[in-house]
């Protein structure tokens, strides 16, 4: 039994407000959990009145927990907006930010650096390259894929063909990465595998200074593409008949996705599931298809989901930490299943 979800204009404001207010709450919660217990009062003190706080608390909060929480917000927002754009342009509800192979490209960059260069320079590759090196390698890999996709997009008219090519390229790259893994030694392998599990905590403040503007740029480009994205809902033929410059619109969307997914993957490793699930949650909550509304809602929901995932990954009460990738999937899947059963169908998009 399908139910028609009616669009109620007023209720959106309530949703915005609720989500917006939840963000600082979750942010604070994320600062609160951690292996070293710091009461909330001291957390707030170290932020607003640092002169009166103990230095190690300031260090923990400012150098570790705050960057991590901000990274969580950025990662959640960026991947959600990237996923939303991919789902719209390919008219595919299963599309995510890595559908074009951007994450695989980043993986290849990192794999080449860690796994092969490692054998040349020895086990110290991590300290030589540092996380800047890894980020750079990931970015170059993602950028190379973007270039390839834009070249393909210029020559091929049919968006479905581009989708299939993207998936094939992605698979091919993963195969190459597997080969590199196969020929590397244990410690290299472990470093690489740990990278693939994703980590929000390894982003330093100076890296944040690069990540934050990148994500903002990607989101701004996406925001300016709202009108094109709405038209793409009807498919490329109708969009073309309404006067859209398809090549330009596609390029902007691919560029935004690459900046968003590429930056996050570069600094945090590949983080899955968020980009696919959050746009659907946004659609189900707002009942609208217009991207002018879906983009901000996806940003808010993405941030919340990521903060929540990070909180859970800290396994409050224990010393251990779960890899973020595992948490986003384990958290996200039941949520989406619950939403499907509530609404009886996830919709075509």
């Amino acid at each position, binding site marked *: 039994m*399908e139910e*028609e*979800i*009616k*669009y109620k204009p007023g209720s959106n404001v309530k949703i915005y407000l609720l989500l917006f207010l939840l963000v600082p709450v979750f942010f604070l919660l994320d600062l609160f959990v951690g292996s070293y217990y710091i009461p909330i009062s001291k957390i707030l003190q170290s932020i607003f009145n640092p002169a009166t706080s103990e230095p190690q608390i300031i260090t923990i909060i400012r150098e570790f927990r705050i960057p991590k929480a901000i990274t969580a917000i950025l990662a959640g927002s960026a991947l959600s907006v990237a996923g939303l754009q991919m789902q719209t342009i390919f*008219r595919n509800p299963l599309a995510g930010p890595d559908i074009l192979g951007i994450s695989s490209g980043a993986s290849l960059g990192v794999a080449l650096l860690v796994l092969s260069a490692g054998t040349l320079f020895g086990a110290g590759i991590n300290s030589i390259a540092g996380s800047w090196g890894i980020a750079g390698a990931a970015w170059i890999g993602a950028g190379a894929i973007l270039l390839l996709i834009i070249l393909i997009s210029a020559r091929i008219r049919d968006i479905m063909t581009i989708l299939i090519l993207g998936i094939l390229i992605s698979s091919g790259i993963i195969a190459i990465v597997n080969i590199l893994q196969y020929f590397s030694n244990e410690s290299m392998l472990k470093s690489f595998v740990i990278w693939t599990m994703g980590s929000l905590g390894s982003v330093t403040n100076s890296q944040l200074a690069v990540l934050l503007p990148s994500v903002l740029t990607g989101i701004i480009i996406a925001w*300016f593409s*709202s*009108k094109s994205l*709405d*038209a793409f*809902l*009807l*498919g490329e*033929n*109708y*969009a*073309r*008949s*309404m*006067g*859209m*410059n398809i090549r330009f619109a596609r390029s902007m969307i691919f560029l935004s996705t690459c900046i968003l997914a590429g930056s996050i993957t570069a600094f945090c490793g590949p983080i899955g599931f968020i980009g696919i699930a959050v746009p659907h949650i946004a*659609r189900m909550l*707002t*009942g*609208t*298809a*217009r991207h*002018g509304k879906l983009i901000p809602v996806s940003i808010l929901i993405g941030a919340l989901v990521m903060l929540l995932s990070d909180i859970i990954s800290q396994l409050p009460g224990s010393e251990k930490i779960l890899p973020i990738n595992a948490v986003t999937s384990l958290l996200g899947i039941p949520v989406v299943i619950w939403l499907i059963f509530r609404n009886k*169908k*996830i*919709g*075509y*998009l």
Partner: protein
Amino acid sequence: MANDEKVISADHLSIGYPIKGSTGKIIKKDICLNAMKGELVAMIGGNGVGKSTLLRTLIGFQPFFSGNIFIKGLALNNYREKELAKIMSFVSTETIHVSNLTVYDLIALGRYPYTDWSGRLTEEDRSKVDEAIQMVGLKGYEDRNVNFISDGERQKTMIARTLAQDTDIILLDEPTAFLDLSNKCEIVHILHRLAYERGKTILFSTHDLSIAIAECDKIWLMLEQQVKEGSPEDLILDGSFSSLFHNKSLYFDTEKGDFRILKETGQKVIVKGDGAPLNWTIKALERIGFEIITNADSKTDHTLLEIESSYPSWFLKSSETREKFNSLYALCRYLMDSKME
């Protein structure tokens, strides 16, 4: 004179699927067709003859091999996308599957060529959208989800979108396919009004011959080897319709204006009566394989059957019998049973 203006003009056009570096596939060569301002034109042709290809070529979705397309006197390739979007709009056969899209939102997308970068609707945009909704009879449906309305209503929504796009030319690919008769007539009626009241040039492809013949100013007849254009009546009278299909058991009845399946005719029968009962009696008898003679001399063969229809009774006279029937069904069953013997 403005009315002589050729709004759409295909000039020695060859359409198909050009492929770089090879010859590609030509579907139809040397097409010369025109549509004038304010005309309702139906494109008729068998499956696979190139109707969709021609429509998609005219709107610029597909490249063509040779020849030219002129829209309002200017070559198609000389138009920029945005300008063309304000002159020509299109309804394709694709079904739209988008969740959360309301009827209003879908129709409002038609304002794309007129809105700024943010897509915000101005007062004028809103009034055009409302007007479009009114024109297709979808008032009250604005907040309905596009996936939860009937096929007919969805088709009207797609047409309303082209109305919101406010173009002089509207091309539609089989807009009446899959619709019931009532919806078919309604859609064509809307198109008719758009041509006559708004002066739009409407070109649509269809398999519904009777509707096209009844409502359209012009038919583009896509035959196997050539294309012809003319008013429906001209094309019927000059026999063009007969060459539409190559099916040997099909023939075009010039009197009635539709296709019939050739049936082996057997016995001749004289039928008397008048009005609708006579027409339908003749139709029923033809269906079961009789050859009808309506104007009979009394000097004809006495072994002929004679049927007199005087609704609600039918009288069957032959050399052997006289029977009365209370329904055409009973009459036909009797005749079929006696044929079996």
